[in-house]
C-alpha cells in the first residue's frame, strides 16, 4: 500500500478546522478533493495552500482529500504537515507560515502574571481572540488537553499559531509534555518566540535543568536572542516537597505553580471546594517560590460558571501569597485581574512609600523614610509593584503623582 496519513478534525460539531487525508502516489501529479463550507469564497486559496505545502515537502504525486469547516490558512498548513509526516516520517522540511510582525514582541522576567489562559494546543479557534480578553499570559497547551494520538499534530498547530496569531501583548507561554517527551516538543516551540515554557509534573530540579539546557541548545542553533523563561509546575507530594529546589534550579525560572488535580490524587485525597487538603502544598509553593525569588502562581479554578466562587478563590490565593492564577475560560480573566488588584488601603500605603522614595531619590538620600520610620528596600520595591498593579488594574490613574483623579 502507498504511504498515507490523516490528520485534523471533522464532523458536525467541528468548526474552523479541517481534516486532511494524504496518500503518496507515483504518478498523476497532485489531485485534491476538497469539501469546504467556504468553497465558493476560499476554495482556490485552500487548494493553493495544499499545493504550496506539498512543494515544500518535495511531494510531486499525491491524492489529497480536504474536509474543511472554515479553517484558517495556518491551520490548514498544520493539518497538511501532520498528515504528510504521518505518511512520510523522514521528511525534515517544515511548512512554516509567515512569522507575523505582531508575534514579535518580548517579555520581562518580573512582569505581572496574574492571569494565564490555558488554550488547548489543537483547537486553533479558541486561540484567535484569546488575547483580546487581556490575560497577562496565554498558554498553548501540548500536554493534558491533547489526546495521546494527537500529540504530534498539536505541535504543528502550536508552532504555526506562535508565528501567526496575534496575542495582543499577552505573554506567550507553551506547556510542553512531561519529560522526556516534553524535550521533543521544544524544537517546535523555541524558534518561534515563546516567552515562557511551562514544565508539567516536575519532581526533581534536574528536570528543570534538562529543559533549560535543551532550550539553550535550540536558542543557539536557531540564533534566538530573547531569553526564554521557565515555569515549573509541581503536581505531586514529592514536587511540592522540593518546591524551593525546583524553583531555584535555573536562573531562567521566573515562576512556580501548582497543579492540584494530580497533587490531591498523589497524596490520596480529593479536591474540595474549601481546599483544606491542599493548604500545605499551596503554602509550600508560595514559600519555595519566594525563597527562590520567583513568582508563586496558583492553580486554575475549574467551575467556569461560578464567578463568585472564582473571586473568593482568587482572594484566598492572594491572601496566601500567590501573585496569579490560571484560567480556563476568558470570562475568568477580568475577575482574576480584579481579585489580584490591590485594595484601597494597600494602594494608599504604597503611594506614600513611593512618594517618600521619589523624594529621597531627588534629595540624593540612600535611605527612604516615612515619618520616623525607615523603609527597607524590599518594601519600597513591593510598593512600586503595588502602585504599578493599581494603575494596570485601572484603579489608579497613571498620572496620580500629578494629582490625576483615580481612574
Amino acid at each position, binding site marked *: 500500500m502507498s504511504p498515507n496519513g490523516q490528520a485534523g478534525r471533522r464532523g458536525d460539531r467541528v*468548526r*474552523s478546522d479541517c481534516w486532511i487525508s494524504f496518500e503518496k502516489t507515483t504518478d498523476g501529479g497532485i489531485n485534491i478533493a476538497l469539501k469546504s*463550507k*467556504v468553497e*465558493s*469564497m*476560499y*476554495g*482556490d*486559496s485552500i487548494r493553493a*495552500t495544499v499545493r504550496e505545502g506539498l512543494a515544500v515537502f518535495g511531494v510531486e504525486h499525491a491524492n489529497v482529500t480536504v474536509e474543511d*469547516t*472554515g*479553517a*484558517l*490558512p495556518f491551520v490548514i498548513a498544520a493539518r497538511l504537515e501532520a498528515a504528510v509526516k504521518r505518511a512520510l516520517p523522514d521528511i525534515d522540511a517544515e511548512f512554516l507560515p509567515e512569522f*507575523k510582525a505582531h508575534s514579535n514582541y518580548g517579555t520581562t522576567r518580573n512582569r505581572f502574571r496574574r492571569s494565564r489562559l490555558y488554550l488547548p494546543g489543537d483547537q486553533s479557534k479558541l486561540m*484567535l*481572540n484569546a488575547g*483580546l*480578553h487581556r490575560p497577562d499570559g496565554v498558554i498553548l497547551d501540548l500536554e493534558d488537553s491533547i489526546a495521546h494520538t494527537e500529540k504530534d499534530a498539536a505541535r504543528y498547530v502550536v508552532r504555526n499559531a506562535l508565528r501567526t496569531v*496575534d496575542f495582543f501583548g499577552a505573554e506567550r507561554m507553551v506547556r510542553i509534555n512531561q519529560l522526556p517527551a516534553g524535550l521533543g516538543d521544544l524544537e517546535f516551540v523555541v524558534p518561534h518566540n515563546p516567552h515562557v515554557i511551562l514544565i508539567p509534573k516536575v519532581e526533581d530540579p534536574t528536570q528543570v535543568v534538562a529543559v533549560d539546557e535543551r532550550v539553550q541548545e535550540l536558542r543557539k542553533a536557531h540564533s534566538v536572542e530573547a531569553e526564554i523563561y521557565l515555569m515549573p509546575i509541581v503536581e505531586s507530594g514529592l514536587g511540592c516537597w522540593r518546591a524551593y529546589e525546583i524553583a531555584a534550579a535555573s536562573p531562567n525560572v521566573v515562576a512556580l505553580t501548582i497543579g492540584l488535580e494530580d497533587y490531591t490524587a498523589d497524596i490520596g485525597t480529593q479536591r474540595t471546594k474549601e481546599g483544606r487538603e491542599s493548604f500545605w502544598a499551596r503554602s509550600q509553593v508560595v514559600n519555595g517560590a519566594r525563597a527562590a525569588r520567583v513568582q508563586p502562581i496558583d492553580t486554575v479554578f475549574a467551575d467556569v460558571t461560578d464567578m463568585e466562587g472564582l473571586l473568593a478563590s482568587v482572594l484566598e490565593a492572594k491572601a496566601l501569597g500567590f501573585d496569579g492564577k490560571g484560567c480556563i*475560560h*476568558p*470570562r475568568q480573566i477580568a475577575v482574576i485581574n480584579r481579585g489580584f488588584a490591590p485594595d484601597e488601603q494597600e494602594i494608599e500605603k504604597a503611594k506614600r512609600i513611593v512618594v517618600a522614595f521619589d523624594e529621597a531619590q531627588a534629595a540624593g538620600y540612600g535611605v527612604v523614610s516615612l515619618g520616623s520610620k525607615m523603609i527597607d528596600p524590599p518594601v519600597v520595591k513591593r510598593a512600586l509593584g503595588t502602585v504599578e498593579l493599581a494603575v494596570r488594574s*485601572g484603579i489608579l490613574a497613571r498620572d496620580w503623582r500629578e494629582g490625576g483623579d483615580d481612574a
Partner: protein
Amino acid sequence: MPNPEMKKNAAGRMVPAEINGREAVPFRGVGKHRPDGTRAAPKVATCIDYPASGNKLVPDIKTALVEAGIRDGMTISTHHHLRNGDFVANAIFDAAAELGIKELVWFPSASFPCHKPIIEHMKNGVIHHIEGSMNGPLGDFCSHGGMRGMGVLRSHGGRYQAVQDGEVHIDISVIAAPTADPFGNAHGLTGPAACGLLGFALADSQYADRVIVVTDNLIDFPCVPWQIQGNYVDFVTTMDAIGDASKIVSGTTQITKSPDRLRIAEMAARFVRDAGIMRDGFSFQGGAGGTSLSFAIFLMDMMREAGVKARFVRGGSTQYLTRMLEEGLTDYILDGQTFDLDGVRSMRENPSHVNTSPFTSYNYHGKGCFASFVDCVVLGATEVDVNFNANVVTHSDGRLLHGIGGWQNCLFSPCVILPIPAFRDRIPVIVDEVTTLCGPGELVDVIVTERGIAINPRREDLLSAVRGTDLPIRTIEELKAEIDDLVGGAPAKPKFGDRVVAAIKWVDGTVIDCVRQLAE
C-alpha cells in the same frame, strides 16, 4: 424565465423594474420617495351576511377556505407569532392541495425551518411563490432557483406598508390564535400555544378580503383583550393544536456563553453608556439573539450602577426585559413579540408591558412611527461594508438565508449599533461591498466587533462623545485589514447566474436590491 427589465437605483444597484408582473419603483434614497394615492381598502361588509348570534364557527380549516372562496392564484397570508412551532401554514396548504388549488401566493410575515414542507407545495404547483422572509431551507430553495415567481422580502414595517398601500392584496388571511371566541376576537396571552401578542396579523385582519381565525383554545365570547377584533373576521375554526409550544416560546431564555459574543455585547453596552445615550428617560431596543440579549443584561447592570431609568424598552421581550420592568429600571416595555414564557406572563399581567404592531412601531407610510425615536438599537448583520452598508438576508456565499424582520425599520433610530463578530469561521464580516444591500450606510452608525468599535465618520457627534474613553475606537478600514490578514485575504465573490430570484424592498416599498440565483 427571463428577467424583467433592470434599472439602476439610487444606491447603484441593478434592480428589477417589475416584480411578478407589477411595476416596481427603484430605491430613490433614504426619505426621497413620496407616495401618492390613497390607502387600499377591502369591500364594505354588512351584518346582513354574518350570523346575528355572533357565531362564525365552521368545522375545519378546509371548510373555512372553501367558504372564503379560495381559488387558483389567490394570495394567502399568515403571521409568524408561532415561530418555529407553527402548524397552521402547513395545514392551510395541505388543505389547498386536497382541494386541487394551484398557483397560490403565500404572504407570511416570516417563515421558519418548520415550513420546509412548503417546498413540496411549490414543487407540486400549489404555491407559485412566497412574498415574505425566507429562512433556512426555503431561502436555500429560492437561491437555487426552485421558486417559479420572484420572492419579495420586506421588513415588518414594509409588509404593513405594502398591504396598506395596496401593493399586496390579501385574498384570504388565516390568523393562528392561541385564544379566540366564536365571533373572532383573539389574543395570544393564554392557551397551549400562547405567544403573547398578535401584532404581525394586524394588517391582515384590517385589509384582507376574507379573514379566518384558527384556534386550539376556543372560549366563550368575549375573548379579551381583543388583540384581533372579531369585527374584521369572517370565519372561526379550530385545530387540535395550532403549534408546538416548546418551539413557540422557550421555557427560559439562555444567555450566550461565548466569550467573544459576551465581549461584543459588553462593549456595545459600554458604548451606549459612555456616549451618554444611557441617561434618565432614554429608550432602547432589545432582542432575543445571543448578543443583543447579553447587551441588554450588561446595560441593565450599568443602569443599576448609575441609578439610571429608561422610559421604555422595545422588545422582543424575554425574562430579562421583564425583570427590568419589575425592578423599575424601565417604565414600559413596548413589545413586538414575546420570546419566552416569562415575557408572555408579564404581558398578560402587567399593564406596563404593552403590545405593539408593525403599524405603531414600523410603518413608514404612517403619520410617524416609534422606530425613529428609540434612542438606540442593537441589530445583527451578515455583512457590513467599509461604507457601513449592511446585509442581513444573504451570506457572503450569496445564499439567501434570513428575513429582514424589523431590521430595516429600526435603522431609523438615532443610534444604530451593529454588534457583530469581525469574522465567522474563516469568513470576514466586514467586506468591500455587501453581497446584498439591505440597509444604506448613512443609517448605520456604529459597528462593535470583538476587535474594536468603528463609528461611521458621518457621526462626528458620536465620535467626539466617546473621545477620551477607554473604548477601543478604530476605523472600519483598520478592522477590515486586520481580519483580511488573519483569514488569508478577502474572500472570492459568489458566482451568480442571471436570474433574479428575490427582490429586497426598502421601508417605503421601493426596491433597494435583489438576489440572483446561484451559479450551480
